[in-house]
């Protein structure tokens, strides 16, 4: 993990070398969903489809539970996990809302009002203080 300040940014998961190695098969599973045939096979039996990819049981579990933050923490990258989202009929904004723990309405309203302010969102210490 990098020690040059990235780790102090709250609520943000950097796709660095370590996560890329960790998440390779998880991400390549997501990449396989670019094909309509693969999407159909996956939907028919998610567990069986996932078994083709040598990811860890924890990674497979985050996929089955659609734990969008969990996938990122185990090496997933948003541009790959968004392909799983698309397979589920979810947009970038839909999964962004899920990752922030907001309802779709709350999240969309926040964006319309100018987005999440950087104030209070720059360091983990600020989040701990609430």
């Amino acid at each position, binding site marked *: 993990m*990098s020690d*040059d*300040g*990235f780790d102090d*940014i*709250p*609520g*943000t*998961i*950097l*796709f*660095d*070398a370590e996560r*890329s190695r960790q998440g*390779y098969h998880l*991400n*390549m599973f*997501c*990449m396989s*969903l*670019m094909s309509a045939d693969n999407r159909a096979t996956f939907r028919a039996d998610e567990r069986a489809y996932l078994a083709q990819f040598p990811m860890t049981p924890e990674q497979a579990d985050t996929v089955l539970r659609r734990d969008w*933050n969990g996938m*990122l923490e185990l090496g997933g*990258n*948003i*541009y*790959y996990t*968004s*392909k799983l989202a*698309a*397979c589920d009929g979810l*947009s*970038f*904004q839909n999964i*962004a*809302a899920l*990752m*922030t*723990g907001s309802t779709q309405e709350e*999240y969309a309203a*926040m*964006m*319309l*009002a*100018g*987005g*999440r*302010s*950087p104030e209070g*969102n*720059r360091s983990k210490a600020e989040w701990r203080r609430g």
Partner: protein
Amino acid sequence: MAEIIAGVATSHVPAIGAAIDLGKTGEPYWQPLFRGFEPSKKWIADLAPDVVILVYNDHASAFSLEVIPTFALGCASEFAPADEGWGARPVPFVQGHPELAWHMAQSLILDEFDMTIVNKMEVDHGLTVPLSLMFGQPEAWPVKVIPLCVNVVQYPPPTGHRCYMLGKAIRKAVESFDRPLRVVIFGTGGMSHQLQGPRAGLINRDFDVNFMDRFTGDPESLVRLPHVDYVREAGSEGIEMVMWLIMRGALEDRAKEVYRYYHVPASNTAVGHLILENPSLPQQRIAETRIEFGMPQLDRQPEDVADEVIV
């Protein structure tokens, strides 16, 4: 001799492409955004460049984790729009300019930029959304396009300084091409946005406006900005703004900003847009452009939404 005459910076949000493709540009959510690009469409139609060098990033479409080139130059004669999981965008195939692209590859590599040469590549929304914003929905794109694909997904992406210096090397490469081509370079991506994690939705208007303020007249002050500052201040995907610096480096130091537009939100993203002209463009054109763009009315609904046009 070929010449770079102007630069365009713009975000490349996929939802903008979807809005165009689904005929939603007149809806209240989208109408202000597209209105902001109307002067730009007229500007580039009047300018009628021969070639666009389009700096963008691939979003796990043409490249996956199997191969991650830092700088990939599209040298093919044609590039198909990518199917990003919901069908390819209904836009024309992109016609390349292999002669200039190969010339650039040779010149850049001998200039110590170790480019990846790509002869087959599909292009995703990162490339096609900027074309749609600037050229609308034609039967065929009215310019040849040379894709320059930059890794900004896998850390570390190239530094802002490296991008800026690559831009300078691109200018040298283009100017040594022995055909009278008029070239515009697009730097795309940004502005502030974060698509992932509990901090998703971050928008930093102050950072974005400051970045645009310094971009034209004082780019040297931006090129040493470390990656961590982009991520902390402009969100994890705000790092895409390093690609704008390739465009800036390819223009002359004395380039002038002739148009600016900034709008929040497009889906999760702050949309920033600049047009810069090199001083070598006839002075008359700059003067005409400035008058023609005028000052469209500010649109702020609701109150807090940043949406403005500044000339």
